[in-house]
Every structure is written in C-alpha cells, then in structure tokens.
C-alpha cells in the first residue's frame, strides 16, 4: 500500500514545525504521535466529546476533525503550550484551586475551550461560559467546579 505524504509547515505552541503527513492524518494524531504532545486526548473521534480540543488560529476546535495537511501556515496552541515561562496560565491555576479536576481526562480540552473563550471575551457571564464549553463532556465533575474556576479568572482579569 502506498501512502502519499505531504509536507506541511505550521506553528505549534510558538514553534514552527515542518512535517510529512499522510493525506488523511488528523491533527490529533500528528500532535500525539509525531510531536509526542499527548496532553491532547481522544475520547470519541467524531467531534462530540471535546477531549481533543486545541486552539487553532485563536479558535477552539476538535483536533480529531482537522486534517493536518490542511493547516499549513496556521498556529496551534495545545495544553502543553498554556504554561508560559514555567508559570501556569491563570486558568490552569484556577482549575487546581477550585477543584475543577477529577480524573483529568477532559481537563486539557476544557482548558483549551475556556482559554479560547477568554481570549475573545475576558469577562464572560456564566451563561457564556456554558455555551463555550457545551462541546466538552465531563463525566466526573458535574461541571460546577469547572465553571467556578473559569469565573474566578474572568473576575480577576477585570
């Protein structure tokens, strides 16, 4: 079987990468398997659970539905890129402080959706937070402490 590979260049967590990828390779697999960025999780592969959420050019997207071959020139931010200069992103710290983490499998996706929200809307209402996180399933926390964590950051950056 011959697989046609294409070369694609894009930015991941601030660093430019050039990779050879199969035409059907999903961004999720590129991140996890080629770049060893396993913080991005796979839960459903059909865009329903949000565990694979990354920020692509400022927008939260499910990386299981994105073909890597099509994102040349784009900028990707993953959970591994949230912590800057050894300092946790305020959202990460808030998730710890507000007990927004249980098993932690949904956490990277939740944080990326929350981050994308705050980039565009630093002071979201509770309802806006709920809308932004609608595509992220969590079976453990019942969501309450996740909302509280995000609200605390939204208030602090007033």
């Amino acid at each position, binding site marked *: 079987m011959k697989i046609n590979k294409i070369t694609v260049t894009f930015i991941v967590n601030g660093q430019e990468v050039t990779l050879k990828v199969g035409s059907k390779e999903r961004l999720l697999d590129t991140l996890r398997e080629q770049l060893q960025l396993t913080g991005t999780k796979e839960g459903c592969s*059909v865009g329903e659970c949000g565990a694979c959420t990354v920020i692509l050019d400022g927008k939260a997207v499910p990386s299981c539905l994105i073909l890597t071959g099509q994102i040349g020139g784009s900028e990707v931010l993953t959970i591994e890129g949230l912590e800057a200069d050894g300092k946790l992103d305020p959202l990460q710290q808030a998730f710890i402080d507000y007990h927004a983490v249980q*098993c932690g*499998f*949904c956490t990277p996706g939740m944080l990326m959706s929350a981050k994308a929200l705050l980039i565009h809307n630093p002071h979201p209402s509770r309802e806006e937070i709920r809308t932004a996180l609608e595509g992220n*399933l969590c079976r*453990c926390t019942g969501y*309450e*402490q996740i909302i509280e964590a995000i609200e605390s950051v939204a208030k602090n950056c007033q």
Partner: protein
Amino acid sequence: MKFSEVNKPVKRVDAYEKVTGKAKFGADLFFPNMLYGKALHSKYPHAQIIKINTEKALTYPGVKAIITAEDIPNNKFGVIIQNQQVLAQEEVLYIGDGIAVVAAETKEAASEAIKLIEVEYKELPGIFDPEEAAKKDAPLIHSELEDNQVVHHRVRKGDVEKAFTQAEVILEREYTTQFVEHSYIEPEAIIAVPYEHNSLVTIYGSIQNPFSCRNAVANVLKVPLNKVRIIQNHMGGSFGGKDEVISSMAARAAVLALKTNQPVKMVNTREESILESYKRHPYKMKYKVGATKEGKLVAMEIKCIADSGAYACQTPFVTWRSVVQATGPYELPSVKTDTYGYYTNNIYTGAMRGYGSPQIVFAQESLMDELADELKMTPLELRLKNIYHNNSITASGQKLDNHQVSLEEVIAKAVKASNYIEKYIEYNKSQLGDKKRGIGMAVSFRGCSLGAEATDAAGAIVAIQRDGSILISSGLAENGEGLKTVFSQIAAEELGVDIKRINYMEVDTSVSPESGATVASRSTLLGGNAVKNAAQQIKRTITEMIADKFKVKSGDLVLRNENIYNKNNNQKIMSFDDAVDLANKLGVFLSAYGWYKAPDISWDEETGQGRPYFTYVYGCQIAEVEVDTATGQIEVLKMVAAHDVGRAINPVTLKGQIYGGIMMALGYGIMEEVEIASGYIKNTNFDEYLIPTIKDMPEIIPIIVENPDPHGPYGAKSIGEPTLELGAPAIANAVAQATGRRIRHLPLNLERVLLGHSLSKGGTKNDIL
C-alpha cells in the same frame, strides 16, 4: 475535635500534572518496538463459530501475529463465576464477544487486517429478555449449566401473606430501568510489555482494579501471580466500568506480547468501547406494598429481575446489594424480596456506580410517592412516618444500633434548602400554560463497603525516606475521585506533617499491598483506616525512640506542625526532620505496613437475615423540574442533595463527588439508554448516546451532614455512590407532580413524557397507567 490536615479543602495532590497535560494515561504511553493490537468482534449476538481463517490477514504488511481462542492457555475468567471467554471459542454469546486479535506494526495495519479475517458463522436464535430466559424450556445460554439463572437472593421477614390481609391499602406497581453506559471519557487502554524487570509480563493502562486484573491475567496465562505485574496509570474515569472488560483486554494483549515478544498496545475506539464493555443492569421490578390508612407500612413484596447479559460478571453481587436495600429505609414488619439475575444474549452487565441500588431506589421511591397519593398524604409525611431511626430493625433483621441513623436530619436539611413544603403546595395548584413545575424527593440508606459480598480488608504502606519525604502505597487505585489526596491527608494528619511531604504511588501489584477492589465507595473507609494504621505505627516508633533518648514518657509526645512536642508543657522537643535524622543514625526503621479488616458481618442466604453491612450512610435529594408539556422536554431546575458522610475528610472533593453523581443521575433519569434491539446495539458513540453536557446542569446545592461513624477514619464513611442513586427517582417524582402522570420506566425521555410511551422501544400506552 480539631484537625490540621483532614476535614479541610486540601488541594488535589495530582492536579498539577493533570492541568498541564503531563499526566500520562494509558493511551499516552509508547514503548520501543511496540505493536498495536485490534480485536475482531462478533457479527451476531448469538452464533456458532464454524471456522476462522486468518491466512489472508496474516499476509497483510505489518501484521506480526493473530490470536484466536486456540492460543489462550485458559480461556475463561471472572471475579465471581469464571465463565467469561477471553475470545469466543465455539459460540459467540453477545455482539461484543471478541473472535480474534491482530498485532501489527501500525494501528492502520491492525485495523485493515481484522477486515481480512474470515469467520464462518451459523447464526443461532438468541434470548434477549431475562423473563424469557427464566422459562423452564428456554434454550441454554451456557450449555454447561442447568438453566439460565445466574443467581437468586432472598429476604424473608415476618409473614407477608398474613400482613397483606391486614393492610387497608395495597398498591401493586411495576417499574423498569434501562441499559446504561458508564461513559468514562477515556476509552479503555492497555499496554502489555513482555519480560520487563523480572516479570513475565507487565501491564500498564486504565485499570480500575489492578489486583483483579492481575488475577485474571495470571489465570488466563496459567502462571503464578508474582509473574504478572500490573501498574496503574492515571485513569480517565471508570465508575465501576474498567474492570472485567479491561481484564479481558489485558489478557489478550498479554498473550500477544508473549507470542511476539514485543510490547502490545490496545486502545479502544468509542464504538468498540460501547460495543464491548459491560453496562448497568436493566431491572424489571414488581413491587407490592401494604399500609394502614394512617400511612404505616405493614408489608412489602418485591421481585426484581436483572438482565445479566452473556456473562455472570458482577451480577451475583449487584443483585445482592439490591436485595438488602430493596425496601428502602423504611420500617417494615413483613418483607419478602427476591432478586434474580438471568443470562441472555444481550451485552453483559456489571458494576456501575450505585451497583444495584439506582434501580431499586427508583422503584421504591416512586412507589412511596404513589402510595402517598393513594393515602392523600404528602410524600414527606408518608416518609417521615416510616423511616429508620436509631435502633430500627431493617428488612434483614439488622438493628441499626452502632451509628447515628440520620435520615430525619438529611431530610430536614434538604427540605429546608429546597423550600420543599411551600413549593409542593404551590405546584399542586393548577398551573397555566404548557410549562408545568413539580418538586420531588427521594431518600435512601446504603450499606458501606462490600458487605457480605466478599472479605473486606485493605492494606497500605507508609514509608518515611531518609530526607523526611514520605511515600504511601496502597492497593486501592485512584480513579479520579481524589483518593490519593484523601489518603495523603490522613497520613499527614497522623504524622503531624505538611501534606507536601507525601507522594502517593501509583498502584503496582508487585509492590502495593493487595487491598481488594476500589469499589463500593469503600476506599476512604477501608484504605483510609489502613493508612491511618500504618502512620500510627510509625508515630509510635518515633515517640518511643525520642522517649528513650530524652527520658520522657512516649505517651506525652505529640506530632504536630512538623514538630514533636511534649504535650504536658507544650515544649518542642525536636523537629520532624531531626527525628528522621535521629532514626537514620540509630538505625530505626520508619516504614510500616498498615492493615484494616472491616468488622464482622453475617448473612443467611436462605432467609436474607443477618448483618449484611457493618454501617450505613443516609441521603435525601430533592429535585425541582419544569416540564414543557407541549414538547415533553424536562428541565431540571434545581437539585438539593443532603448526604451524611460520617466525616468529610476533604469537603471540596466531596462536593465534587456530589456534583458529578447528580449529573450522572440526571443522565440516568431523563436522557441515557443504550438501545439494544435483538442483541444489536444501536447507539455506539456520543452523537447518539447522549450524556449530560454543561448546558443540562441544574442549580445544585450540596449539603454535607457529618455524624462521625465509630468505624471510619476520623468518622468518615463514603460518598461516591449514594449521590447517584437518588437523582432519577427525585426527578421522576417531580415530573409526576408537574404533569399529573406517573412514568414508571427510565429514562423519562421525550416520548414517554409526551406520549406516555417510548417510540424507540415499540412501547405501548400500557407503559403508563
């Protein structure tokens, strides 16, 4: 009592790695030379396997090995009854049975190769209804057995027949519940590594119960337990679900790893996970209750039938919890309860958070509301007339005399916080428009830990290192609920040190003490006591060492705030670090193995009398809903949950358990159902199997009630499961008040609310009386 580390909202000890993406879950592990395993599943729910031809698949580029049942040294396993096939031998018994497993160099090659395996089947008629399976002439699901019954448990108390003749009101009702998927967000993952560190095979992955997994794998491979090593990774949720299905996956991967002499990784897709993994048992429940006109219960007769699916799995114990708790927390002079499990060709069923209680609590709490209606009483009044108090006698004849029976307290607190009394009156008045509101309650008692299901003991190691840092290891596994944090808090409390000193090790079956399973919300109670016991031994060693050196009485020494003090004059004698240094110099051993065995319990299988659990927890939840009677849409507006937990070791992780449990209950009550038609599963991913999202959240008010239990560490009992068993009936009762119609079948989906029957199930109007 004043505490320094427990009873406090200490932050999770494993949160940092989880918020940074550094935490490694099963699927995140990669080993050099690793192969990918993929299973071929059955095409039919019930069929004979005539022939399996793997030749073509073996020639597919990258394929290293293919195994079938022939290659499995011992093909049957199971925790209670060993009848689950690792791979189907002669017959497939359900749609998720595995037939062959391929190991290949890439995931793609493994997926392509399984398509090339040729299987010749002879389709067989199946049984998909446990009541059919119960019939005398029913074909046998397991041909080596005499009938299809997995188990039958009984409770017999008083003379039920006579009692019913004295009842002034008798109500008979039937309730049913559905198949439910655990829906842990992380699909199952396993990596088997051959010949690593003196073990025949080491297994990593999302393993809820490392010791049951080790038993299964060693049994399947026919090797001693010490040759198989299981190391648990971070778990992406389990809720009871990553047990037998993981054991089977681990056994398959182990056989392939030994065959190829390469690590083998298997990760399920969501579809594979839903198709293969066991579900929550659907129950059919017949309840008959008798009462006086004043609302005093006199008799209850109950028959519950559980669908066990193809295998026994946990059915014998799940239905046992049901038989103990089936009447609910109500005083009853006469009780006759029978719970049954039957094999069918449906997907098999097993442990899921609640474990045989959510079904019966739904029935019994719906029934109480129906009876209240009949007696023209409020649901609250009827319950208050009949609930357990201190020294009440349960249906099993157990006197509740060794702990505070706090039903009245949890009910009072939930009623107050929800404004239940006012709202109940308000919503009983006729409501204008399509949107109608209702409020409903549910209460329960729940036996802690395993009860008479199995021997109940746990161990833990606490080891102080040369520099004063501390390692804890226990056989109980962190499943995301916060167990590591709670155990670390307990060790820190006993040793009087900061929790930062402590590192809780992942479970490693070759190192950690076997502690039974992380099930039945038993971890805090059992494991917590074991950790406490180990820490106390070290404390004794330290105080004796210092007493000897400073010529003081060891009993006068206390460990607190990182120091050792003489409690008589509050003088600091030395710091904890100095004490560790001293022990290093003197050659004093600062590690201990703690052990805790639960108090004795008893059970008579014939009569169901005895002391099935050594203690109980109590809870009350109240739901407020709004039903759009034009669309059938239910919106849960508010849930109030009052739970007696004994003592909250960590109030914030505990609240997290309540929020999570309530949302899972909400899914159980109004959304979720694995739709199975003649053994085929229709909804295999989250686009069709819908679980609650952040948009479905009601306002949730958790109320923690603390009545310390003499058996628990610092009085703590359990919380994981009680939170989940009350939501569905509370919601169902609220919906009944809002709409004036009683739905006796879960889930309360749109069609049932709107039409009175379920379209997808081919239901009829008789669904609702």
